[in-house]
């Protein structure tokens, strides 16, 4: 009773008529995403993007077909590990894709590393997974926490920001993002005048933190928040009227395309950095957004793009390898193509993606938030950080 999406069936059928039956192969992709629990929303975005990617690129495989087996990770490490094992050992999938939470990725890591089945990570940004805990079996097509924030420190210092106050939720990703920013910002001569790490869960009342940050009188506030916390934070920051004195900067999840319309006027003036902005003006992005918006009546977010590019990556690697397991893995590590986010490639030294980071500004015009790209930092690549394949 698995949900199976068969794609390229028509193509396969027509080729079969042409006598290519013996040549066609079926590839199984195991999709591991949270479909329930707090990350269910992200799971849905990535899955939608992944399906769209298979639609757009699946035909490239000719007579070969890709079958999806999906499993709900519930964002719980133990449950996810059991389901990963099932996919690899029982369903015998050729490749795994997905994983939103870094804790879930941490739980799967050793098993995936020791199994022969590669995993394409479509969200979880934990630096270590393409650093000291990297694995030839784990390829990340989304981002790493430090990759997004590292370029911002120098950029911000160049804009004349001398002092900054940091704020992020109190968990690994929050700390990694802030650390990466802090390093480049202080190297460029900036000073951190204060930091606050509110709890990840709980009442989500940032009033007290915002009041404290304001009292520290920095030139700018640099933050990372995502999802409901990002909406609440941006709204409250706006309501406290701090923005005119202290501009708000952050990792781009702060004003993600997934929910910036909910923030509305509150997002106005916020500048953020991310590997994808819907405003990117390329034919690849237009094709993606047109199709995505037609199918789902909403803007494709960076999460959807990660799913979409994961599909592209897998199709490309299958095509290159012709079905050979090792060649497939090698092809994943060396993939290179233009996606909605622009040029991207996988760095064989870490298996992390190399991509542009966009600095973009949110402006509230005529009842809508408009995002415009201020600057593009090309080919941002993570150092190996203890990774040896």
């Amino acid at each position, binding site marked *: 009773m698995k949900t199976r999406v068969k794609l390229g069936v028509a193509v396969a059928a027509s080729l079969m008529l042409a006598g290519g039956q013996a040549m066609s192969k079926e590839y199984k992709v195991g999709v591991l995403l949270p479909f329930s629990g707090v990350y269910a929303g992200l799971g849905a975005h990535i899955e939608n993007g992944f399906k769209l990617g298979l639609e757009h690129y699946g035909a490239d495989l000719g007579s070969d077909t890709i079958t999806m087996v999906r499993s709900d990770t519930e964002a719980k490490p133990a449950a996810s590990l059991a389901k990963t094992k099932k996919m690899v050992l029982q369903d015998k999938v050729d490749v795994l894709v997905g994983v939103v939470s870094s804790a879930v990725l941490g739980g799967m890591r050793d098993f995936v590393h020791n199994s022969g089945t590669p995993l394409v990570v479509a969200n979880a940004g934990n630096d270590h997974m393409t650093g000291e805990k990297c694995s030839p079996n784990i390829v990340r097509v989304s981002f790493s926490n430090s990759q997004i924030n590292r370029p911002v420190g120098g950029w911000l210092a160049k804009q004349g920001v001398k002092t900054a106050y940091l704020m992020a939720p109190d968990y690994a990703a929050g700390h990694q993002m802030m650390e990466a920013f802090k390093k480049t910002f202080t190297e460029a001569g900036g000073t951190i005048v204060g930091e606050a790490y509110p709890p990840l869960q709980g009442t989500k009342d940032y009033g*007290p933190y915002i*009041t404290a940050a304001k009292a520290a009188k920095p030139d700018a506030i640099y933050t990372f928040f995502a999802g409901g916390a990002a909406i609440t934070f941006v709204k409250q920051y706006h309501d406290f009227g701090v923005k005119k004195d202290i501009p708000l900067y952050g990792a781009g999840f702060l004003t993600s395309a997934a*929910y910036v319309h909910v923030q509305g006027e509150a997002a106005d003036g916020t500048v953020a950095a991310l590997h994808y902005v819907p405003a990117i003006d390329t034919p690849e992005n237009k094709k993606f957004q047109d199709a995505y918006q037609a199918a789902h009546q909403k803007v494709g977010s960076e999460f959807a793009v990660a799913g979409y590019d994961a599909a592209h990556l897998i199709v490309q690697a299958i095509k290159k390898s012709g079905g050979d397991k090792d060649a497939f893995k090698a092809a994943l590590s060396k993939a290179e193509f233009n996606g909605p986010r622009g040029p991207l490639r996988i760095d064989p030294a870490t298996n992390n993606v190399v991509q542009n980071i966009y600095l973009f500004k949110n402006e509230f015009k005529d009842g809508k938030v408009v995002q415009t790209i201020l600057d593009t930092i090309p080919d941002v690549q993570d150092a190996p950080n203890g990774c040896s394949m």
Partner: protein
Amino acid sequence: MLTDSGFWFVQVLNSLQLSMLLFLLSVGLTVIFGLMNFVNLAHGSLYALGALFGYSIAQATGGMWLAYLLAPLCVMLVGAILYILIIDRMRKAGPMKQVLVTFGLIFVLLDIQRYLWGTDQLGVTSGIPFSGSFEIFGEIYPSYRLFIICVGLVVFAALFLLLEHTRLGAEVRAGVDDPETASCLGVNVERTFFVVFLIGSALAGLAGVVAMPAFSAEAGMGVSILVPTLVVVVVGGLGSLKGAFAGSLLIGTTLTFGQVIIPSFASMLMYALLVAVLLIRPSGLFPARG
């Protein structure tokens, strides 16, 4: 910063705002607890429903005022359905089974919310009253937060009058003290339970719809608010308005000033406070039943 009186004044307002939100949530729960001896873990889900109904109504009408009025009524209707189908039948089942049934209800209501409203965050960006801010002691403070504080105080005053100066209030207090005797005096205790459950549900819904413009609405937002609400109820003492009010202020203040003074241990502080209060007063600060 530590000597800046404006800073501390704003933090006091912040703590009041959080306290009032907690009060709106916990007061219904505590009276249901006290009157019916009923442990309703699904109370947080009603909060989420209030926010989500409020979102839909605001979308349809283009403003919040109708949402403030109608969303609590919608939640009250859900409360009525829950009462008739489940709560009423579980009243005498003992706390353990009640915990279990309402724990199951959390799952059910969560998935219904996800099905109806999806998994994305929702929020309104226009038609919000008091969306500006005002200046006080040289600090800028959002007017909407003051609005939340006022709603909390008004509800407290209204409930105080209702409980202390009306016949329904006397019947509720009598029902908390001794439901058997109250029924022998002609009080339809079961109907009183029902009315109190509806009011409690509506207040949870009100909390949700009032919080929605300042925060956002999403399926599942009720689960994370449940624990602080339970803490307020237990610290305040079961069944009393005074307890809910005092407990809310205590927890709201602890969380807010905890966040300012020792940010990473604010929620830990809340739990420590609960343990301390229970060890000194094993039935909370102001229990309705001695």
